[in-house]
């Protein structure tokens, strides 16, 4: 399969950040989603970390690291003015209870229905177990769920698929998908291509995407 050169991970994160409105509470998952925080500094957006923190600051470097202060990916982070800590049940009350405005997660696969898979790679051969973490809770409670991921695997296999071949995290939950090649929206009729990487054509995106894409009438280049 052909593999296209697209946005670097940091720039996918930048594109996601532009989709987040001011005055939002946001939870960022592991991977590309974590990078979104770099683009939110100075914005009136509050990051929730499921370990039990509101207003999670940037990553802590060197001596700034505090062994009692990490994010949900086990990285030392910093406190900012107005940070608050709380216990895990309160944290998941926020998540499950629909108090988070935007959740950004990574995924192995997303399908046309807005189902996605992120929690288990069956090829690891662990007899049906894996790390769920907070992924299913976050997906279930999200008001808006964005997926930020590479458009294909390293080998060029599409991650936007007709049927999930990895175990699902949740069904019919994904609103928008941000990849290195495109910005897409899950609509009742399927996946709508809204923006694409400069220089690529619709056919190029389609060639690395399993389901037949719908195309927005106002299709444009990815806006940064």
């Amino acid at each position, binding site marked *: 399969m052909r593999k296209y050169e697209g946005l670097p991970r940091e720039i996918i994160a930048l594109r996601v950040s532009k989709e987040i409105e001011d005055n939002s509470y946001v939870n960022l998952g*592991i991977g590309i989603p974590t990078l979104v925080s770099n683009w939110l500094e100075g914005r009136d957006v509050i990051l929730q*970390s*499921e*370990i*039990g*923190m509101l207003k999670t600051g940037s990553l802590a470097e060197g001596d700034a*690291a*505090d*062994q*009692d*202060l*990490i*994010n*949900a990916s*086990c*990285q*030392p982070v910093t*406190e900012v003015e107005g940070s608050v*800590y*709380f*216990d*895990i*049940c309160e*944290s*998941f009350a926020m*998540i*499950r209870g629909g108090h988070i405005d935007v959740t950004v997660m990574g995924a192995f696969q997303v399908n046309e229905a807005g*189902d996605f898979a992120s*929690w288990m*790679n069956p090829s*690891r*051969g*662990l*007899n*049906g*177990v*894996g*790390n*769920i*973490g*907070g*992924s*299913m*809770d976050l997906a*279930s*409670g999200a008001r808006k769920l964005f997926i930020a991921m590479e458009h294909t695997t390293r080998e060029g296999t599409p991650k936007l698929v007709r049927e999930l071949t990895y*175990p*699902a*995290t*949740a*069904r*019919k939950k994904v609103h928008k998908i941000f990849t290195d090649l495109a910005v897409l929206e899950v609509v009742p009729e399927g996946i709508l291509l809204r923006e694409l990487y400069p220089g690529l054509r619709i056919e190029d995106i389609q060639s690395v995407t399993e389901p037949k894409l719908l195309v927005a009438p106002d299709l444009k280049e990815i806006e940064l």
Partner: protein
Amino acid sequence: MNKVVKDMREALSGLDYGATVAVGGFFAAGVPRLLLRALIEKEVKGLTLACGSGPLLGAKDELDALVENGQIRKIIDSYGLFRSASRGARHPLEQKVRSGEIEFEVYPMGTLSEKYRMAGAGIPASYIPVGIGSMVEQSVITNIEGKRKEREIRTIDGRTCVLEYALKPDFALVHAYSGDSEGNLRYRKTARNFNHVMAMAARVTVAEVENLAASGDLEPDSVHTPGIFVHRVIPVPRIAFEITNV
């Protein structure tokens, strides 16, 4: 009431073969490392370690010892396996999960936190709208095929839910930043995580406390875990540890 015990032996007394032991902490933060070390020293076996989010990945030396000593029969967690496949494959824990020597049961993190809370609050079961459309809906997720009990599903007010049950540990081992002799506890920053709810849940809660305060020294409006949930208090030094990738 003075709940301060004189040593680790007394702290873990009655924690015997086959016990279900909740272990506080979220990856590296808030793990009761010194209680885990005492558990290793005690050499008690057949344990079910009821975790929240990978405290054993965050305390790897202790994990290695527990696995190597064959003390663990079962782990309950939401994120208890190494993230990296290659690293996981090399680790004795994953090998024993693969072979079925250690049972590994996994839940969504928020569901697991509610299972502990239900136990603490005397609520036998709740309908939770998480995991629908995933393997969670079909059965309890475990590496042991015979243990994959079917789930009960029901739609309430338009939300499809799984019936989840309380999970009551025999013991909880928790880590607090400060606490008094009556068992009132305060945690520091993100080290709070599962420690409070596990303290609520267990039949016997043992708290390792970095700073032992006199009764009345904790501000009454600022206690995180009221002493009624805590049965034993053991003062411990603050130890440094590395926060490494899980």
